C-alpha cells in the first residue's frame, strides 16, 4: 500500500518527519519498506502563470512564452504543443536540476540561445521533473495554483510504501493509516466530511437490488447519479492516484479507485443505461459466459458469485466487471455499487480466474459490511462534485443480516498474564480510544471494549492486548528469562544417534552433504528405487518426486565434485519417503556414503593409491566399532553394484544395509566418471534399535597373552570370515586378525593362503607353550574338518 503523506494530512496532523513516522508505523506492525520523496530535486522550480504566447521568429514549432512568476516576468522558448495562455505551469529557473528529455540524465539548466532567442528558464514536462516519461507535453497545473510558490511546496509529497499484514484489511486505506498515525503520535484523526445534495428522483423508482445468495453477499449498497459528464479527473486526484501507484483513467473510474484507496472499500460503476430495467440480482453463476473488461470470455460457475441483470451476469462480484456494462465516454448515468462479499469465496474465485486485483485483495481479507455504506456515500459525493452529476434520492441498501459483535472484557490480570507487566487502565483506554475502540470501565480492573466496525481482526482479549502493546511499543515491555520449572525431557534417541553417526564419519575424514529430497522420476527408476510419491504442483521436472533412495542425489554430487577433487569421501544422513495406505508417508532416516579417488593425498612422503572396497568397509567398521555393534558382512548382490564386490550388512541377524562398488554402467548414467566408486547405505531406523547401551566393563587381562601366526591353504573362494569365526569361537583365543592373503603360481590351482595372527590368553594364569600348542592343534583339526583347510608350512 502506497501512502501519500499529503493525503494523510487531510485527516490527521502529521507532526513528525516522514522518516520518524515510517519508523513508528514499522514498529507497530505496518512495515514501511520504502519511502519516496516527490519533489526532492525540484529546487528552483516554481509555479508560473503563462501571460502571453508569441510565435518564435525563426521556428514554426517553437513559441515564446511570457511567464509571470509573482513580481517578475520571464520570456522563454517553449516547444510543447499544449501550452496555452493563462495556464498555470511549472517553471524552472536557471540552475534547476532537470532530467534531460533525451538522455534521461539529470542536468543543470543553463541559459541557452534557441534559434537566436536567449531563454533563461524552462516550462517543464513531467519527464523533466522526474515524474513520468512524458516530455512532449508540459504539466498544466490547477488554475488555483499560487503563482511564485516553489513547486515542491505546492505539489511535493512523500510516499510511504507499506507492507500491510493479511489481518489488517483496514490498513489498506488512507483512513486506516491516518488512524494508526493518530494513535502513534497522540493526535486525533478526522473523517472526510461527506455531504451532498440528492437532487434526483428517488432511487427506488429506477433501481432494485436483490441478493439471491446471502451466504456470499452480506450487503449491497448502490447509488444512482444522472447527468454525469465523463472526462479526465482533476489534477490533484490524478496526482494522488499516481502517487499510490494507480493510473488515472477517467473521472468515474478514478473516483472509484480514489475512494477504494481512501476507505479500503472497492466500488464498481455500471453504465445504468446498459442495465435493463435497473434490476440487479446478486446470485451464483450458472455456467454462463461473461466477457470481462479485460476482453476475456469467462465462464461463471456455481462456485462463483455474479452480479446479474434479469438474464445475464454483468460482473464477477468483487473481482472484475463485465465489458457490456462498463462505463465509457458516452455514459451519462452511473449505478455505483459498494458491496460486501464472502471473503473466502472472493479469494477462491480470484485464484481460480488468476485475477487478483486491488479490489479482490481487499475483499478477501474480510471487510466490514458497515464500510460499504460509508464508501458509497463518499464516492457519490465526489461524482456529484467533480462530474456535474445529480444524485438520486437515497441509497439502495440491502443488508439481510446485520452483524453485531458483543463487547470484549479485558482485565488487568489478563494483560499482566500475557505481557508480564502491568499497564495502567488509563493508558489502555487512551490507546484503544485513539484507535476507535469504545471502552466502558466496569471496574478499576476491567474494561468492556466495543470493537469499531473496521477492525474485523479483533475478537479476543489478546487481540486488544496486542493493540495496547504495539502502540505503547514492544520496547516498553520488560525483558525476563523463563523462570518456570524446566519440563522433564523425553529422550529422542534418533536425534542423538544421527549426530553421533555424523561425528564418527567426520572423524573418518568424510564430508557431510545435504541434498534435495525432491528428485526426478528417472533418477530413481535408474536404480530401481521403490515407487515414489509424486507432487501435485512440482516446481520443475527435476523436483517432481519425493526420493525413495539417497543414491541418485549422492551420485549426482559425486559427478558435480569429481572434476575439482582428487578424492571424495561424502556422506549424507537424510530421509526417504515411502508411501503408506491412508497415512502420511513413512519417513525413514538413511545414511548414504561414497568414496572414490585417491586414498589420502599424494605428498612428498606418501605414495598415493586408489581407494578400494576395504577403505569403505574400514570406515563402516570404525562406525560400528564406535557404536558398539557387531556387524556381519556377507557376499550379496545389488543391481547397482559390481557383482562379487558387494556385501550385505547385518547386525544381530537383521539386514541393515549394503556396501559395494558402483556398477560403471550406473555411474555413466549419472555422469560419474570416477571409477571405482564405493557406496554404502545404512538404514538408521533399523540400526538404532540394535545398538545396545554400554554394559559393565571387562577387567584388564593381568596375564600376558601368547601370539601365534598360522598360515592356511584354503579354497580360493572361501570367505575369510568363515575361518575367522571358527578361530574366534575357540577356547582361550582372545583375538584374531588376518595379516596376509596370498594367491599365486606357487600355490596349487584354485587355492589361496590366509595367514592369521592369533592371541591366546587366560584371565587366570600365564599360559604355557604346551597348553597353547594343544589348543591350536585342536583348532587346526576343526578347521580341516569343517572347511577342508590345511596348515601351510
Amino acid at each position, binding site marked *: 500500500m502506497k501512502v501519500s503523506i499529503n493525503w494523510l494530512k487531510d485527516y490527521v496532523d502529521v507532526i513528525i518527519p516522514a522518516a520518524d513516522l515510517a519508523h513508528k508505523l514499522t514498529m507497530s*506492525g505496518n512495515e514501511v519498506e520504502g519511502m519516496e520523496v516527490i519533489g526532492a530535486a525540484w529546487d528552483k522550480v516554481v509555479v508560473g502563470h503563462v501571460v502571453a504566447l508569441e510565435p518564435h521568429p525563426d521556428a514554426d514549432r517553437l513559441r515564446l512564452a511570457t511567464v509571470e512568476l509573482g513580481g517578475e516576468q520571464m520570456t522563454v522558448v517553449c516547444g510543447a504543443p499544449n501550452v496555452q495562455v493563462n495556464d498555470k505551469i511549472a517553471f524552472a529557473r536557471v540552475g534547476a536540476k532537470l532530467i534531460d528529455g533525451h538522455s534521461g540524465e539529470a542536468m543543470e539548466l543553463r541559459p541557452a540561445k534557441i534559434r537566436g532567442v536567449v531563454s533563461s528558464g524552462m516550462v517543464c514536462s513531467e519527464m523533466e521533473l522526474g515524474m513520468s516519461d512524458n516530455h512532449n507535453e508540459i504539466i498544466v497545473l490547477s488554475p488555483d495554483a499560487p503563482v511564485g510558490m516553489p513547486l515542491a511546496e505546492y505539489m511535493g509529497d512523500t510516499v510511504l510504501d507499506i507492507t500491510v499484514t493479511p489481518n489488517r484489511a483496514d490498513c489498506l486505506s488512507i483512513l486506516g493509516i491516518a488512524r494508526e498515525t493518530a494513535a502513534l503520535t497522540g493526535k486525533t484523526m478526522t473523517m472526510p466530511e461527506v455531504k451532498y445534495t440528492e437532487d434526483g428522483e428517488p432511487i427506488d423508482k429506477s433501481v432494485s437490488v436483490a441478493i439471491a445468495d446471502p451466504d456470499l453477499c452480506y450487503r449491497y449498497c448502490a447509488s444512482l447519479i444522472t447527468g454525469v459528464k465523463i472526462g479526465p479527473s482533476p489534477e490533484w486526484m490524478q496526482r494522488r492516484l499516481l502517487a499510490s501507484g494507480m493510473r488515472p483513467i477517467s473521472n468515474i473510474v478514478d473516483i472509484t479507485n480514489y475512494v477504494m484507496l481512501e476507505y479500503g472499500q472497492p466500488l464498481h460503476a455500471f453504465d445504468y443505461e446498459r442495465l435493463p430495467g435497473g434490476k440487479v440480482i446478486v446470485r451464483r453463476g450458472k455456467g454462463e459466459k461473461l466477457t470481462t473488461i479485460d476482453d476475456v470470455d469467462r465462464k461463471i460457475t456455481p462456485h462463483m458469485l455474479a452480479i446479474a441483470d434479469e438474464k445475464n451476469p454483468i460482473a464477477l462480484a468483487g473481482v472484475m466487471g463485465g465489458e457490456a456494462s462498463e462505463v465509457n465516454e458516452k455514459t451519462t448515468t452511473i449505478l455505483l455499487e459498494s458491496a460486501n462479499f464472502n471473503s473466502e469465496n472472493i479469494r477462491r474465485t480470484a485464484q481460480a480466474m488468476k485475477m487478483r486485483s486491488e479490489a479482490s485483495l481487499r475483499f478477501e481479507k474480510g471487510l466490514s459490511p458497515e464500510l460499504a455504506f460509508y464508501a458509497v456515500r463518499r464516492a457519490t459525493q465526489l461524482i456529484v462534485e467533480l462530474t456535474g452529476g445529480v444524485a438520486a434520492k437515497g441509497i439502495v441498501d440491502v443488508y439481510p443480516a446485520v452483524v453485531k459483535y458483543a463487547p470484549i472484557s479485558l482485565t488487568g490480570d489478563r494483560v499482566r498474564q500475557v505481557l508480564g507487566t502491568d499497564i495502567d487502565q488509563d493508558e489502555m483506554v487512551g490507546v484503544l480510544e485513539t484507535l476507535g475502540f469504545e471502552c466502558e470501565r466496569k471496574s478499576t480492573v476491567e474494561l468492556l471494549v466495543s470493537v469499531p466496525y473496521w477492525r474485523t481482526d479483533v475478537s479476543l482479549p489478546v487481540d486488544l492486548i496486542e493493540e495496547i502493546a504495539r502502540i505503547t511499543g514492544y*520496547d516498553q515491555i520488560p525483558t*525476563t528469562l523463563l523462570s*518456570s520449572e524446566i519440563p522433564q525431557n523425553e529422550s529422542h534417541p534418533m536425534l542423538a544417534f544421527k549426530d553421533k553417526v555424523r561425528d564418527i564419519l567426520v572423524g573418518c*575424514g568424510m564430508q*557431510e552433504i545435504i541434498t534435495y529430497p525432491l528428485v526426478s522420476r528417472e533418477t530413481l527408476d535408474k536404480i530401481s528405487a521403490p515407487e515414489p510419491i509424486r507432487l501435485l504442483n512440482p516446481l520443475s521436472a527435476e523436483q517432481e518426486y519425493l526420493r525413495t533412495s539417497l543414491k541418485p542425489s549422492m551420485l549426482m554430487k559425486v559427478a558435480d565434485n569429481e572434476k575439482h577433487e582428487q578424492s571424495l569421501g561424502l556422506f549424507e544422513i537424510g530421509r526417504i*519417503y515411502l508411501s503408506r495406505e491412508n497415512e502420511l*508417508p513413512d519417513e525413514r532416516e538413511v545414511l548414504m556414503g561414497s568414496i572414490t579417488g585417491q586414498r589420502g593425498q599424494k605428498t612428498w612422503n606418501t605414495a598415493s593409491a586408489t581407494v578400494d572396497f576395504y577403505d569403505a568397509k574400514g570406515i563402516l567398521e570404525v562406525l560400528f566399532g564406535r557404536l558398539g555393534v557387531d556387524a556381519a558382512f556377507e557376499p550379496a548382490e545389488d543391481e547397482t553394484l559390481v557383482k562379487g564386490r558387494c556385501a550385505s550388512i547385518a547386525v544381530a541377524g537383521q539386514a541393515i544395509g549394503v556396501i559395494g562398488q558402483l556398477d560403471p554402467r550406473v555411474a555413466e548414467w549419472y555422469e560419474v566418471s570416477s571409477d571405482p566408486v564405493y557406496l554404502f547405505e545404512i538404514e538408521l531406523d533399523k540400526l538404532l534399535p540394535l545398538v545396545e547401551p554400554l554394559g559393565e566393563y571387562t577387567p584388564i587381562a593381568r596375564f600376558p597373552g601368547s601370539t601365534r601366526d598360522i598360515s592356511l591353504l584354503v579354497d580360493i573362494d572361501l570367505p575369510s570370515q568363515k575361518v575367522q569365526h571358527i578361530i574366534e569361537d575357540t577356547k582361550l583365543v582372545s583375538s584374531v586378525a588376518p595379516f596376509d592373503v596370498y594367491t599365486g603360481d606357487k600355490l596349487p590351482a584354485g587355492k589361496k593362503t590366509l595367514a592369521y595372527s592369533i592371541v591366546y590368553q587366560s584371565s587366570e594364569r600365564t599360559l604355557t607353550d604346551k597348553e597353547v600348542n594343544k589348543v591350536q592343534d585342536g583348532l587346526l583339526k576343526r578347521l580341516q574338518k569343517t572347511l577342508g583347510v590345511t596348515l601351510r608350512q
Partner: protein
Amino acid sequence: MLNDLDKLKSQAIAELQSITDANSIEDWRVAYLGRKGKLTQILRGLSTLPIEERKAVGAAANDIKVLLDEELNKRHRAIKEASLDGGAQAIDVTLPGRTVPLGRLHPTTQIIRQINDAFTSMGFEVVEGPEVESDYYNFEALNIPKDHPARDMWDTIWISRDEASPTLLRTHTSPMQVRVMEKRQPPVRVVVPGRCYRYEATDATHESIFFQIEGLAVDKGITFADLKGTLYEFAKRLFGAERKVRFRCDYFPFVEPGVDMSIDCFVCGGKGCRLCSNTGWIEILGAGMVHPNVLRGVGYDSDIYTGFAFGLGVERIFMLKHGIDDIRLFYGDDLRFLKQF
C-alpha cells in the same frame, strides 16, 4: 696377571675416551667386552691358573668388566647427547605432515547444532517431526483456515488436495507445535529443527527447500517479557553479547501478539547498508504469544496457560554470520564451498 689386567683397564679406558661416534664404540665393545674380546679371553683363561690366583684375578677381572660396562654406558650417553645438542638429528620441519583426511559437517548441521545448544541450555528439548504433513497440522490447527488470506504467506507444494485428507510438504516447522502439545501436558519447552518446502522460485535469498527451527514454550505464567528475554539471550549467544535487538509488531495467525525480531546490522553498525537494506536492522525471526485458538485446539485451557513460539530460517543465520550472499550455495554441495567451514 693382575698387572696385565691393570694395563688392559687403562688402555681400554683411554681408547674409550677418544671415541666420538657410535660405530667406533661398538668396535670398542667387541674388542674388549665381546665374546672374543680381550677381557673375555682373560676370564676364559682363568681355569689354567692355580686356585688362589684364579680367585684374585677373577674378582679383579669382574670388577674391571663392571667398570668398563659403566664407562661404555657413560660414553654412549655422552656421544648421544653431543649429537642431540649439536643438531645432528635435524630434519626439515617445514615439509608438510603426513595427511589425515579432514571431514566436516555440513554448514546447516553446524548452525542447527549451535542454535539447538543455545536453547537446550535454557531448558528446551530438541524434537523432530514429519516433512510430509496434513493440511490440518500445517494450517488448520494453527488458526489458518481454508481460504484464509494469510495462506498467501506460505506458497505450498501439495501432495494431494482431496477434500478428505489434503496433504502437503510442510511450509514451516510450526505444525510440530501442535503435534508436541497434543502429546504432552504443560510445561512444554521444545525446539524443532527441520526441513521446509515452499512453492517459490529460487534466487540468491530464497530457497524453495530450506531448514527452519521452531521453538515453543507453554506453561502457567509464561509472558511476552519471557519471550523477549529468551530470544534476546539466543541472539547474544549466536551473534555476540554486544548485539542489540529490536522487537516490532508483526502478524502470524498462530500467535497474538505477533513479533518480528531484528538484530542491529553488524556490517554497518546500524547506519544503513546493503545487507540491512539501509534500515540498520536485520530481521532474524518471527515469534509471538501462542494464539488462544491454537491452545484450545490441543485441549489446553487458554485462560490458565500461556506461551510463546518462534521460528527462524537456519541458513539465513549462517549466511549472516559468514557474509554468504547466495543461499543456493548450501545445497549445491560444492566442496569448494563446504570445505570452508
